[in-house]
């Protein structure tokens, strides 16, 4: 009687959101490569357009292949609904424009992916939405930055690239005290390592491009509506609690209850901003999600081996990964992440920026590119790529030193990854001829 008997995580990774195709019997998720869908009659068409009946009418709003991925991600995160987008950046934008309007304000971690930081710091202010950046390790700073117009707290579960571990519950408590939701970017952790909604987050976003897809062949993003935040009680979100003329005066909270955010994000956000995921990409990303538990376990074990090898290398001056006992969040990570803290780490080597450059140019197995979460090991020098728009001062605040090398540990044999890194480190320490 005490076990609810829900399907377990590994099973949901393979099955959630899909029934075998009723027409053909296809076991795999078909790619519904179509822009539009035939209506049964005019009443059916009118019902779809007015949200009276569920279904697909145009693939900018929804698509059967994309819907399988959406439902699967919602299941894996333990939310009520998910909306997939063209990229992770589009997911962040969709969440913001669904919840906020000109004049509103965000309190965000200062340790964000450079693209997210740029959107919040440079782009959204042009549309009247401003952000205060705070130290993600200090929940009190989130509270102190709250303004009367604050509508959202935003942080990464594992910061980029310093892997700062967010105390989700502590920051969520501050958000809820301020009457606003906490949204977390859980791209680095995936639901395999942590399910942020269970820790108090209200909205989860992903760049599905990364570990969820795992293969580096398709872009995609997602927001998962936790269904936990009481928009009506907060009374700060008119897009959800007041009549919307776009659908004959609909009030999304009144109509959909816990699923209000997801419904508005799709019915307005995808309709009007149009950053929809393609069905082909959804298919590719689903192939990755099917093996997420197996891959993440291997990513983590390889990362632990790499961290321990780097720690014993005399040329490595520092390592940032929560598995390392020297990491500031080591104890918090052990509590929140019993399965490990992912496969992204950063480190510095003796010789500063020139040695870092030589290291990057000396790796042979690892690929030098601007991505993470691939099955293959990737390396990057953020100061010259993803974070290049940031000033030196902002780089320091974001924990991105000039010598920082970011490593995304792949699924190769760990000994081959370590051998490649050690060979490149050795070369980086040789005097320039």
């Amino acid at each position, binding site marked *: 009687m005490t076990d*609810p008997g829900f399907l377990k995580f590994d099973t949901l990774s393979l099955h*959630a959101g*899909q029934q075998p195709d009723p027409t053909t019997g296809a076991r795999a998720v078909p790619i519904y490569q179509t822009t539009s869908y035939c209506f049964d009659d005019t009443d059916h068409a009118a019902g779809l357009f007015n949200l009276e*009946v569920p279904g*697909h009418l145009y693939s900018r709003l929804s698509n059967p292949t994309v819907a399988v991925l*959406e439902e*699967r991600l919602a299941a894996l995160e*333990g*939310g009520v609904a998910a909306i997939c987008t063209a990229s992770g950046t589009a997911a962040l934008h969709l969440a913001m424009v669904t919840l906020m309007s000109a004049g509103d304000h965000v309190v965000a971690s200062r340790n964000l992916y450079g693209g997210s930081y740029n959107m919040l710091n440079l782009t959204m202010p042009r549309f009247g939405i401003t952000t205060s950046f705070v130290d993600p390790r200090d929940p009190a700073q989130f509270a102190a930055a709250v303004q009367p117009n604050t509508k959202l707290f935003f942080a990464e579960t594992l910061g980029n690239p310093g892997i700062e571990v967010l105390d989700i519950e502590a920051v969520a408590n501050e958000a809820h005290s301020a009457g606003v939701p906490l949204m977390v970017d859980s791209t680095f952790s995936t639901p395999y390592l942590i399910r942020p909604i269970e820790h108090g987050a209200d909205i989860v976003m992903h760049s599905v491009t990364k570990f969820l897809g795992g293969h580096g062949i398709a872009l995609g993003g997602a927001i998962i509506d936790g269904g936990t935040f009481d928009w009506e009680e907060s009374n700060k979100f008119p897009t959800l609690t007041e009549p919307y003329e776009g659908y004959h005066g609909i009030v999304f909270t009144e109509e959909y209850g*816990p699923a209000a955010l997801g419904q508005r994000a799709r019915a307005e956000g995808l309709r009007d901003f149009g950053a929809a995921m393609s069905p082909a990409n959804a298919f590719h990303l689903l192939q990755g999600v099917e093996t997420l538990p197996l891959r993440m376990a291997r990513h983590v074990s390889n990362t632990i081996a790499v961290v321990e090898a780097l720690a014993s290398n005399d040329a490595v001056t520092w390592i940032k990964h929560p598995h390392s006992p020297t990491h500031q969040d080591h104890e918090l990570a052990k509590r929140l992440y019993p399965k490990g803290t992912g496969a992204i780490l950063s480190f510095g080597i003796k010789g500063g920026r020139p040695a870092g450059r030589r290291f990057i140019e000396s790796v042979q197995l690892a690929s030098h590119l601007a991505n993470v979460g691939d099955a293959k090991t990737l390396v990057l020098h953020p100061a010259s790529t993803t974070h290049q728009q940031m000033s030196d001062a902002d780089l320091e605040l974001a924990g991105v030193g000039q010598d920082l090398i970011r490593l995304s540990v792949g699924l190769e044999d760990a000994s081959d990854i370590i051998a490649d890194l050690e060979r490149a480190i050795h070369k980086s320490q040789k005097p320039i001829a």
Partner: protein
Amino acid sequence: MKTSIGGRNVRFANSAMDIDRDAPGLVFLHGAGMDHSMWQLQSRYFAHHGFRSIAVDLPGHGKSEGPPLESVEALADWTAEIIDKLEVGPAHVVGHSLGSLIALELAGSRPELVRSLVLLGTAAELPVNDSLLKIAATDQHRAGQLMTSWSHDPKTHRGGHDVPGYWQLGSSIHLIDRCPEDVLSTDLHACNNYEGGLSAAERISARTTIIVGLGDRMSRPGQIEPLLTNIADVEVVEIAGAGHMAMIEASAAVRTALANAFAHGAG
């Protein structure tokens, strides 16, 4: 939308439709630990198809002020007051699980308010497992998980919902989690203690439709037999691939069944 009964606020959803006084009334009653939003895939449709559609939050649920009422009889009296207050009677009354017992009792005690009756996840009595009653009294979240698991067909546990991106099991759990701590326990005791189903059934004059999810493990399909024997004018609609939550698991089939029930019950 809001109104009040007995000085306490009541929330109901009418899909933002101006009420046409000539249109037939339609009242949706939700089950234990739920709120009006469980009818979202039917209530909005009928609000835009010629009905004065009212999906209520029972006292203490959703945004209706508490406390929750402790008996099916009290809830039926409360529903009668709502129908009178909103002037939607005689109404088509649709109830699910606890809501079906309320509808049953209402149709027996106040037949003049009921134009037709539709019952989902129902039986003349809905006894609740002792273990579930105990868990609900101390750990509502756990009880909500157990109910969510049992109230959905195994097919639904894998998903593939009509609403793109919607994860029904998560929605059910979070909906129950939103209830104040004593609500689910109070609801389950109200179900467990109700013994007036057969008596009410004998007094029902309205055309009645019972919608059965063939995978229902909360109120098993065979349990409706006493109702079939005692209700004068009754029809059964069976839906495969749905459990106790047929209105969400098989939303189109339930919409069709409701439309047929309202058409037959119009006279």
